[in-house]
């Protein structure tokens, strides 16, 4: 096994340090987010940049305030984790989200998702997804309203600049996401637009190709463990394939993989080293669980998309997975006690 694998290998000494610390890890991921943000800006215009800037400002500001007041010395903005959570939260919002909600989501993501747990490394749930789930629970309508992309760079949906707790003066033209169309209207979107982008949906999930390339780059540079995304995507593909053959209840592997937030989640959230299991066996269980839950919620659930909930649910059982897959101590019996 290569020594540069970035997860905590629970094995006896000797070990070799790869020099891949928290700060470099976060920056490696942040660099690959540039093309994803650029794609979002290309398809959704200034609204994408505005929302991502809002969430990132909120997360970094909250992190700065809280680490400054914690009495642990310097602030911890330099490790880039707050910026990463902010950008990821921005990428999973609809393009018509009001800016004040994005700011609120960023604050909640850091406080509830990270600070109360004791900061980076202790949080058991992905901060960006905690913020997203909070917004979805608090403002279900705003977070499931989708506007069509490609209306000109400077065209903002009126709701984006709406004042807090107020409705926008005019309504934007809304449309359904590919998943919504498949689920509630039985129509499949052409695969080209799913792969290259241009479908309605959250900011970061529009182009499958960009996400796959970023994921490959991160995987080849060993920034994350390949088992987590591979297990997630394989399970989702297999399960949806089986369902398609068995009565056509699900829209098939290719559509399942390239639509919605599955790729965004598999590349950037399932691979979070903090909130996922430590052991290789645990990683397989985690990935399989996420893939299974995604297809389950998409096929039979009340919502069209379930990636966020699937990852949060598997985050919740990660302590149990870690415990069940604990490797036995060398020299002891077959079962560790």
């Amino acid at each position, binding site marked *: 096994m290569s020594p540069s694998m970035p997860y905590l290998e629970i094995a006896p000494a000797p070990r070799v340090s790869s020099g891949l610390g928290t700060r470099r890890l976060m920056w490696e991921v942040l660099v690959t987010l540039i093309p994803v943000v650029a794609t979002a800006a290309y398809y959704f215009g200034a609204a994408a940049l505005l929302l991502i800037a809002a969430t990132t400002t909120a997360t970094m500001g909250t992190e700065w305030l809280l680490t400054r007041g*914690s009495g642990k010395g310097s602030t911890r903005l330099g490790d880039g984790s707050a910026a990463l959570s902010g950008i990821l939260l921005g990428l999973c919002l609809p393009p018509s989200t009001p800016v004040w909600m994005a700011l609120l989501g960023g604050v909640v993501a850091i406080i*509830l*998702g990270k*600070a*109360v*747990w*004791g*900061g980076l490394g*202790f949080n*058991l*749930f992905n901060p960006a997804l*905690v913020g997203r*789930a*909070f917004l*979805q*629970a608090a403002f279900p309508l705003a977070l499931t309203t989708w506007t069509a992309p490609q209306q000109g760079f400077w065209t903002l949906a009126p709701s984006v600049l709406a004042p807090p707790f107020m409705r926008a003066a005019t309504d934007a033209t809304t449309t359904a996401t590919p998943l919504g169309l498949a689920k509630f209207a039985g129509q499949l979107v052409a695969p080209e637009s799913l792969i290259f982008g241009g479908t309605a949906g959250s900011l970061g999930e529009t182009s499958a190709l960009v996400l796959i390339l970023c994921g490959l780059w991160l995987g080849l540079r060993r920034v994350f463990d390949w088992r987590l995304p591979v297990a997630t995507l394989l399970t989702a593909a297999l399960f949806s394939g089986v369902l398609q053959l068995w009565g056509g*209840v699900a829209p098939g592997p290719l559509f399942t993989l390239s639509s919605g937030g599955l790729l965004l989640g598999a590349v950037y959230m399932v691979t979070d080293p903090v909130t996922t299991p430590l052991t290789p066996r645990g990683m397989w269980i985690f990935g399989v669980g996420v893939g299974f*839950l995604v297809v*389950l*919620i998409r096929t*039979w*659930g*009340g*919502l069209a998309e*379930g990636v*966020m*909930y*699937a990852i*949060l*649910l598997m*985050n*919740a*059982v990660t*302590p*149990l997975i*870690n*415990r069940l897959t604990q490797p036995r101590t060398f020299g002891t019996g077959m079962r560790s006690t």
Partner: protein
Amino acid sequence: MDDLLFIFASASVINNFTLAYFLGLCPFLGVTGRIDTALRLGSATIFVMMITALASWCLNTWVLPHAPYLRLISFIVVIASTVQFVEMAIRKLSPALFRALGIFLPLITTNCAILGLALFATNRGYGLVQGLVFAFGAGVGFTLALLIMAGIREESELAGVPALVRGAAMSFFIAGILSMAFMGFAGLFHGS
């Protein structure tokens, strides 16, 4: 068969008694310090729930048609006596567990999840088999919630949780996040 499967899935996960209906919160926050205690309290609750379902079905079939005003009080009596029975059994069989559960074992009596179970089963008009499956599902769901909570709390014991939120506040934060995560199951299987 599909019907029973749906009842089980609904009671255990989709409408989880603790995380969706917010019933049985006292043991959820009180006995989830350690995973093994949580597992045992969960098993005891499953047992009490099954007995309650059986007893409430008997009551509903033979007694309550003659005296409907006795429903609530007779359910409470049934639950209290079942818990008493479980308590005596655990005391004899596993004194260590008896001590670990402490006050929370008799508190199963006042666990609203169990009275809720009996009332839900009556309101939805479940038969004997449906009622038992419902009780088993609810118990499994309750145990699942306890286990997840215990796992998270054991891990956050080792984390640097700030002194400001350590203890009860942190438990409520965790319960809130878990509840948000379980919202993903809302509406599952209703369309088909």
